[in-house]
């Protein structure tokens, strides 16, 4: 494991600060989206991952972002920002302004940057990711593919079709289940029989389990899963038990105050904060805040994207 070295204390601290900065960037960017929506400046919808940032940060940082491939879903801001950190491009995308990563067409759910692809159809990306894994295996690029799924998506047949083929053909793909226990408004127990964490075992896919509350531990588990996928050129299943602190999109949270208070206690950002030197923490907070404020000001000042010249 990467943390078990003589100066592991320093490395852990550096990693914690790095993760904290990324998680805070994701949290505050999404809070900014909600605010812009409330101000009537952001059209449509956004699905925030508030409370789940650690999953994006831990998993993406365990990958080789120069060559590895990521497929994500409707709740993708965290994965996108952990992958490329392009706050301006993402802001411009959801605001329909010049410089948008997908020309304002994709919006919040349909993002592409480098080797990251997202789509808003539940489960549809699973076979796409499996095909990407096959492509990289055929090309002998050494790249692995990660696909982020939610617990609600585990109802889709496409996921199991993909796991079957990934195991049958031994493809280098990591299926990540971000299990926040709720699909839009419906609790997991009302949607799924049995235990989601055992779903991959029947295909002979090794399963790893971790909790999003502790980003460093989650990262360690992911490093092990990614290592297996890359070295053995085989699939793996990573179950991340996580907690959605916010609504599905906006104002559609029907959970009781007691439930919300309970998930509030599992905020990985607050947990990580305790492990960061206060002075350092303040510096990171200031820097992230300035970055986002500057980005918002910059992007809101840009012209709207025109359809001119498009088919």
């Amino acid at each position, binding site marked *: 494991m990467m943390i078990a070295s003589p100066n592991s204390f320093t490395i852990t601290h550096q990693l914690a600060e790095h993760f904290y900065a990324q998680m805070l960037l994701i949290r505050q960017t999404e809070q900014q989206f909600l605010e812009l929506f409330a101000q009537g400046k952001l059209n449509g919808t956004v699905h925030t991952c508030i409370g789940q940032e650690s999953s994006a940060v831990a998993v993406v940082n365990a990958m080789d972002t120069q060559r590895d491939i990521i497929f994500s879903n409707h709740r993708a801001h965290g994965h996108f920002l952990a992958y490329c950190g392009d706050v301006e491009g993402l802001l411009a995308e959801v605001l329909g302004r010049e410089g948008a990563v997908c020309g304002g067409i*994709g919006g919040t759910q349909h993002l*592409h940057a480098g080797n990251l692809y997202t789509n808003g159809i539940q489960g*549809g990306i699973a076979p*796409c990711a499996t*095909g990407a894994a096959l492509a990289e295996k055929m090309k002998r690029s050494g790249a692995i593919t990660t696909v982020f799924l939610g617990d609600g998506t585990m109802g889709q047949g496409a996921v199991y079709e993909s796991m079957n083929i990934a195991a049958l053909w031994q493809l280098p793909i990591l299926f990540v289940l971000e299990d926040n226990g709720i699909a839009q408004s419906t609790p997991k127990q009302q949607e799924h029989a049995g235990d989601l964490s055992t779903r991959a075992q029947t295909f002979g896919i090794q399963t790893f389990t971790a909790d999003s509350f502790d980003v460093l531990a989650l990262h360690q588990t992911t490093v092990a899963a990614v290592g297996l996928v890359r070295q053995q050129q085989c699939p793996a299943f990573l179950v991340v038990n996580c907690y959605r602190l916010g609504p599905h999109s906006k104002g559609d949270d029907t959970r009781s105050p007691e439930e919300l208070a309970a998930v509030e206690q599992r905020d990985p950002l607050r947990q990580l904060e305790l492990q960061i030197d206060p002075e350092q923490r303040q510096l990171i907070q200031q820097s992230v805040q300035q970055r986002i404020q500057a980005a918002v000001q910059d992007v809101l000042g840009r012209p709207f994207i025109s359809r001119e010249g498009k088919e």
Partner: protein
Amino acid sequence: MSQQLTNLESLRSALQSAMADDETVVVFGEDILDPYGGAFKVTKGLSTAFPNRVFTTPICEGAIVGMANGLALRGMRPVAELMFGDFITLAADQLINHAAKFPAMYNGRVTLPLVVRTPMGGGRGYGPTHSQSLERMFCGVPHLSVVAPTIFHDAGKLLRAAIASDGPVVFIENKLLYPLRQQLHSTATIQHDVLDPEAEYPTVRLRNFGAGDSADVTLIANGGVSRFLPSLLERLADEEIRLQAVLPSVLSPLPPIAPLAAAAADSGRVVIAEEGIATNGWGAELAARLYESCMGRLACPIVRIGAMPTVIPAAKHLEDEILPSETTILNAILKVLS
């Protein structure tokens, strides 16, 4: 000589040459490995020649096309086979919400060179779920091409064009055309020419009369119904009825309307025929476009021929009543002439 090939041989040899020419071409489908070589044998020999690039899959049409999408996004040129066209509904999400969306919704920053080949059509007594022509359901999907050869097209050349294309293509093969020999040149009674030889997916014109004359009637048709044309053109020639048949090979998006409208206006009388259900079909869109382009030059309303809007029965005599035939097309031609 290429005109001696059957439709099946032409397609098979195109797959062979596409794989030989480009190592990014990969082929997927159910039961496609040798010695079986696919339910309709289009892939026969491929897995022997290219064992590492031909994959037999589990029964999972959604994942077959989904995987092909992922391969296409990552620089490969996948050709997926769906054993029966009826099963394409299982892959509709991957075609409509993934293949056709990725390049456009990522603002043109990715390409998606995907071909989904599938046999459509009835006439073999396979019944309600193995006989349909469902291509009309994919016509009109933005950024998705639907291509269907007739026996008057070089099917293999069309397939090579589809494989070379950087966008997703649904490639429709009519089951009854497979054993028929392609007719790519004029004969003593049928003039064969191509309206747009430079096009990626050209439109063929057949005439049972000499150049210089005008047609009495224009038949615009696609895919499987082309098998009726050799006989139909000759029968009408015997009756001294000048028929021109216009056969687009791309069903969606429609090819440029001007040449089709010119052909329609030339006779002023138009029949449109397809094997699929005519209601909300390919012909409905085509007719609307023709009315927009040349209504004033038409002598009578356009008549559309297609399958009756019901399930396709398994019993042969019942199936025959549901699907378009040489007789139903002939009757439609006589109707617009009267």
